[in-house]
């Protein structure tokens, strides 16, 4: 145990777990004591979903070193498939928490499959080209769900694209109604479920990073050519990070959607992908605790700025630019280093 504690990465992961557990206990007890505003209470599940989005994207951007601008697409896949599963299984699994778990697994599996399919072409590209193609896929996924009609009746699921051709029987129910999305969702997502999902994702990411596969992923990030020269298959490990990340985003999407009564495809657009990317960059590349804090704070911040109503998004934008300038401008960095002695900037290369 003492030896484990000496390991920097292990120590970091324990601090992160402890932080998440502590935050859960505190928030849960405040909520139970009735000391929480209902607006914040309603945000607990979305915060969890965004936290999972941020740490899963950090796996791709921070650990694997590939810029993805379409992460919301996987969230969308998870939301629509997971909610469809939850609705379809409403009678088969009456127990809501169990149905939630099954729905999240379905969402994760489908998002993982889509991630794999997208990964085949995308991971052949590099840098900005890879980024633009992930953006394109995100938009394509949005377009598809905006035009997808899925209904269910006694005969099973009926799927059609562009227009409602599901021809349901009388007892049938149209689940996904194109641009109207899914309505009448039973809100079965809970803060506890979100908390557990965060822990599971952290467990997977930390253990992956500290294993042979995680080292291979980081080796490719640091130097692709050297990684190949020591016998590492670049495609395999890039794909591994990409698929795991997509699956997590899918589970987050299911959790997110099951917290509202309706879900529409436009909720998961380019802006959502960018929002999650902002969480990751703010929290620090490869830094999971940073992602968690950034996701939570930046999800609550616009709400907290509600007093400023019209100016809040403007303030948000200014804060975003100023933080980027403060943390990345060499001149400001040097100034900060002088003000705070002993604080050494971690080196990251481009």
């Amino acid at each position, binding site marked *: 145990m003492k030896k484990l504690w000496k390991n920097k990465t292990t120590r970091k992961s324990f601090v992160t777990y402890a932080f998440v557990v502590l935050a859960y206990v505190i928030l849960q007890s405040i909520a139970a004591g009735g000391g929480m505003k209902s607006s914040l209470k309603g945000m607990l599940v979305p915060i969890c979903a965004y936290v999972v989005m941020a740490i899963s994207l950090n796996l791709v951007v921070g650990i694997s070193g590939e810029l993805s601008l379409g992460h919301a697409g996987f969230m969308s896949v998870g939301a629509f498939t997971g909610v469809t599963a939850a609705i379809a299984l409403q009678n088969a699994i009456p127990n809501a928490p169990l149905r939630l778990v099954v729905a999240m697994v379905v969402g994760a599996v489908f998002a993982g499959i889509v991630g794999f399919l997208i990964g085949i072409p995308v991971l052949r590209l590099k840098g900005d080209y890879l980024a633009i193609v992930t953006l394109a896929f995100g938009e394509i996924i949005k377009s598809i769900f905006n035009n997808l009609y899925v209904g269910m009746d006694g005969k099973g699921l009926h799927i059609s694209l562009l227009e409602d051709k599901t021809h349901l029987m009388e007892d049938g129910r149209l689940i996904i109604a194109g641009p109207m999305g899914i309505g009448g969702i039973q809100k079965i997502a809970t803060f506890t479920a979100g908390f557990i999902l965060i822990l599971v994702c952290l467990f997977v990411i930390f253990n992956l990073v500290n294993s*042979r*596969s995680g080292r291979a992923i*980081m080796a490719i990030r640091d*130097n692709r*050519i050297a990684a190949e*020269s*020591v*016998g590492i298959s670049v495609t395999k490990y890039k794909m591994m990070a990409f698929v795991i990340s997509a699956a997590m985003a899918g589970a987050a999407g299911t959790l997110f959607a099951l917290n509202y009564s309706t879900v529409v495809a436009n909720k998961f657009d380019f802006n959502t992908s960018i929002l999650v990317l902002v969480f990751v960059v703010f929290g620090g590349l490869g830094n999971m605790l940073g992602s968690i804090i950034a996701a939570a704070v930046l999800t609550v911040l616009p709400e907290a700025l509600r007093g400023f109503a019209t100016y809040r998004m403007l303030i948000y934008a200014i804060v975003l630019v100023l933080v980027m300038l403060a943390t990345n401008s060499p001149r400001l960095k040097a100034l900060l280093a002088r003000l705070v002695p002993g604080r050494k900037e971690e080196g990251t*290369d481009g």
Partner: protein
Amino acid sequence: MAKEFVKGKMVPVPSTSIIPERDLDKTPILECRHLGIDFGGLRAVDDFNLILGRTEIAGLIGPNGAGKTTVFNLLTKVYHPTRGTILLDGMDTAGKTTPQINRMGIARTFQNIRLFNNLSVEDNVKIGLHNQEPYSAATGIFRLPKYWRQEKASHERALELLSIFDMQDMADTPAGSLPYGAQRRLEIVRALATNPSLLLLDEPAAGMNPSETGELMENIVKIRDTFQIAVLLIEHDMRLVMGICEGICVLNFGRIIAKGTSDEIQANPTVIEAYLGRKKEA
């Protein structure tokens, strides 16, 4: 791209190979036949023939831009040859990828150092052990017993390999913050970790002072003796090349202009004209 699809003339493999006597009864570890690559219209390497013994230390020298690193890139399939064959331990490597070549037994270092800079020295070596101590991603995520076993084994092996260059104390240092000489040595350790039968060193002594170079020479010989592998190195430091290379191959404008022992090379007028002649102090 190549206008001439196949070169018409079939030149027999030069028999003036310089395999050390002790390796003569075994298959050569590497055999290149009429190897060549064109970049656009430029014949970067042409008609490159080489036979390397199993425990031979050989040098590849030549003026800047002669195509030495390109030969390494051909051997490791960073580039795919336009012409010719590469046999590794008697097996044709055509169509193989860089990682496959490494698994087949070639490991290399790079002229412009390529370490995993954000990772620790130990992790760099462990990445070299990637295919030596394998376990699946799921085993790693769920930390099954095999994970602990293999991690322990690779930790010990990594420290053992680092001790060749007395680097075990730096195991936790990020590779990017090592001094230059140590970075070059770490690259060699990482390459060795992949358990190669042929080690390619691209200017291992570049930027080292004479005493460091002397130490490196001893270490290269020690590595060959301990691991019983072949070493092919590119180097401009003639003291190192003449000191430890049993066979030397001189490249100029992408073609081999001379092959032989250090004495033969030093006496070869073509070499002196092309290469050594310009360096008065050599």
